[in-house]
């Protein structure tokens, strides 16, 4: 019991520490791809530090929901992260929820984020909320079907069990069903984390924003919490991909000695996935909003093919 609590604390701290790093890495890599220097890998930490020290401006039209939203966004993302295997195949809080709980916890965060966008009465907030809920709703079937394919392979929705099965079969990721499911989940990752071609994380042009539009009125520590929550959510989705499909370096139990090696391998896997994301972001233009459903339909088709190929191969 105390061991499990300790594991949870360690993983929580790792989630807090690694998530800004990944965001910084993606931004820097993207800048390099565009032959810019970029602000440096550590910039997200500096941003957090700065924002937490600042004061806040609360819109006069906002209700208590506006203040509750940052906490919910942060805590749902962090709790989802504790249900995933990170360094070890056994997730610290795996008993409390598997892949369905992760998906629904992220949904809870999104629900309140969208309400927070509507709460201020600004048209931009409503615009962001409307688009976010639309896109996430269309992402959901592709995500679930891909997740089901993975879960059926392990005959469990427990993420620890999924990782354990994957560890047992090192070359499984080249099976057609796994590759198709990976491709589907990759599109889901792009859509859920608001990256090009679905949303542009760097934009501040009001009419094209989705995520940014919802949080336009947030400032100071609240903004920091929401941003941190969004980075953790991105890390959670990336962990879902890397540890379900490339389970290398995952330890069977929890031991401090192997933790450093596991962490090193994990960071390399995350860096590789970040590379894929950056490649997609720099080689594509942002889509028109009404072209996004086609992309998500393609993801759904990929997931359906993955499912069919589970018993063809």
């Amino acid at each position, binding site marked *: 019991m105390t061991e499990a609590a300790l594991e949870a604390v360690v993983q929580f701290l790792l989630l807090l520490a690694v998530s800004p790093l990944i965001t910084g890495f993606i931004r820097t890599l993207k800048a390099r791809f565009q032959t810019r220097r970029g602000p440096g890998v550590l910039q997200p930490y500096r941003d957090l530090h700065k924002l937490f020290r600042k004061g806040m401006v609360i819109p006069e*039209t906002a209700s208590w929901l506006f203040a509750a939203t940052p906490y919910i966004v942060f805590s749902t993302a962090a*709790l989802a992260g504790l249900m995933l295997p990170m360094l070890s195949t056994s997730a610290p809080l795996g008993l409390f929820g598997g892949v369905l709980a992760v998906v629904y916890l992220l949904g809870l965060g999104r629900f309140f984020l969208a309400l927070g966008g509507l709460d201020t*009465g600004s048209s931009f907030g409503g615009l962001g909320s409307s688009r976010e809920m*639309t896109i996430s*709703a269309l992402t959901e079937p592709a995500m*679930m079907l891909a997740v089901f394919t993975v879960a059926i392979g392990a005959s469990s929705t427990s993420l620890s069990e999924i990782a354990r099965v994957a560890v047992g079969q090192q070359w499984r990721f080249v099976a057609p069903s796994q590759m198709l499911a990976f491709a589907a989940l990759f599109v889901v990752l792009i859509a859920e984390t608001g990256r090009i071609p679905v949303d542009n994380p760097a934009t501040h042009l009001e009419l094209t924003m989705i995520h940014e539009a919802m949080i336009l009125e947030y400032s100071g520590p609240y903004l*920091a919490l929401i941003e941190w929550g969004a980075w953790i959510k991105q890390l959670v989705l990336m962990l879902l991909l890397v540890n379900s499909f490339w389970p290398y370096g995952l330890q069977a139990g929890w031991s401090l000695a192997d933790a450093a090696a596991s962490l090193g391998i994990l960071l390399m896997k995350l860096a590789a996935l970040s590379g894929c994301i950056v490649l997609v972001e720099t080689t594509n233009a942002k889509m028109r909003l009404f072209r996004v459903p086609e992309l998500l339909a393609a993801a759904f088709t990929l997931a359906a093919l993955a*499912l069919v190929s589970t018993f063809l191969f």
Partner: protein
Amino acid sequence: MGGASPILFNAGLLAYVLGAAAALALVWRPDAARLASFSLALAGAALEMAASAAALAKAPPPAWNLPCGVALFSFGVRLDPLSAYFGLALAVLAASASIYSFGYLRRWPGGTGAGLLGFFYNALLLSLTLVFAASNAFFFLLAWEVMALAAYCLVSFEHEKQETRNAGTLFLIMSHGGTGMLLIAFLVLATASGSLEFADFHLRISALPPAVRTVVLLLFFLGFGVKAGIIPVHVWLPAAHPVAPSNVSALMSGIVIKAGIYGMARVFFDFLGEPPLWIGTLVLAVGVVSGLIGVLYALMEHDLKRLLAYHSIENIGIILTGFGAALLFRSLGHVNLAALALIAGLYHTLNHAIFKCLLFLGAGSVLHATHTRNMEEMGGLIRRLPATAFFFLTGAAAISGLPPLNGFVSEWLTYQALLAGFGTTQSLTRLMFPVAGALLALTAALAAACFVKAFGITFLALPRSGEAERAREAPTSMRLGMAVLAAACVVLGIGAVWFLPVFDPITAQAMGVGISSSLAAGGGLALSAGTPRGGTVSPAAIAGLLLLLSALPAVLWIRRGRRVTGPVWDCGLPGLTAANEYTATAFSKPLRMIFAALYRPRREIQAEFEVSPYYPTAIRFESEIEPSFEKRLYDPIKDRVLAAAGRMRVMQAGSIHAYLAYIFVALVLLLLFGARG
């Protein structure tokens, strides 16, 4: 006879009867009628709750005859686990709706209104109680018919409005179409078994010849489906539920439609026996389609109560997804999985009853305060109706399936059943399960989008009309009614593991197994899918950890004091007004365009200008979607029926001689038919 249930049950019925009688007796004194009829309804609900709870734990189900009846037909009552479960759901809803009604009807326009409403309200509760408890087909159909008529009178209560009269008529016609189908099905079954007793129908359907069995199953499914509001026989539901008084809408959407679900559960898991594969497939497909189409139409509604009514169709779809999976698993011989899927469906039945009742009561408070059902005229109500807003938000989160509330638990169980279904067979049919799961995910995500709209536009930001500006919080009794249901949403979510043993007797009766012990994991802390390696989830731990993880940044990083209130960014215009806000129409616009093939939207913009089209003086915007089912399915049927009636009118010449001739011919034909048989 056995235990305390019969006495409590009969006393509850008596309370409802007295409540109806008192309402009529005091019809000219609205205040006294309101207090008397709803106090007695509350007492009846409390007694029925006790009776159902006592019967749930009782091994041979208590069965007895009511002390009245007519020759040949007995008013037999049996509280078996299934009946007691639905009776419990009804009693919880009846209690909270009755508490709510005290305040809701206080400002009802005087006259006989409150008394008549109290009469029909008690009649509805009485008949519903008997629908769930009747133990023979005759009594069941009698109670069913009284329920339909009481519901009709309640739907048509504000009959001064044309909309209400149309909705009431549509409800009555469709309801009777459904009852007709049930009558035929019951008669076939009664002929085959030589009795009207439900006990004699047990496992009887699978013994019928295949062709008859198919017809009987379809009649039952469609007949109960009309009441439940499955697609495509749902059109009465979004018309009838919103026009009723809100306390009645809450009962209608919460539990009256569940009478259809109860009927299906009774037929599929009691009368049927070994189900053929096609019925499970049909129920699953209808469930998934109803869920998706229900939520898609809900998204386009700006009438708060109509939006909720469409969500009832969606949730009936989710319930039937569970039932369909249970039927399929039984056909494939996986009894434990069938029990899991049945539990998922039945749990969602109770959960939906509770949060839908809560949401309709919340909508009633809003209606009470703003005198409109149009969301575009609301806004800012979270400051004016803080308690109502909080309860509505709880219901909205529960119906969107968000953890740790009750909707999440039943949806999670449904997903687990569907996922396990993939391994039950080697044929291609197994692809059905994950695809149904993916569509269920789409349905749930669209429901979340819809409730962001419903809550956000109704309660958040600035008020969009004077009525919303002046809105006042609901009286204490209304808030209390909602509080009970909101608490139930939390308790049934967090305490799901402890509630599940309730289903053991039901699944034992339907499938011969009780699986609740295999659904608990981690020393009763977490819920399990029942398979050794399957998934687990713990709503209680999720709730606790979310609080803990939220408290952490609040304590560590967020400093007090350094916050100022400022205006919202309005692009430099002079101040933010309600006109700047996003509307419900705008919110659902992306989905309206994406699913244009279903909605066939039409819009019209007319701008008036004086100097240049770039400076309009007035803009008129009109947008509507095509009601496809009404237009493409029901209008042709209606036209044919009317045309046929027109032709038949030739016979109705009004001449008494002609009528005498008809009677004579009919008599002769009947005699000939009788002589031959």
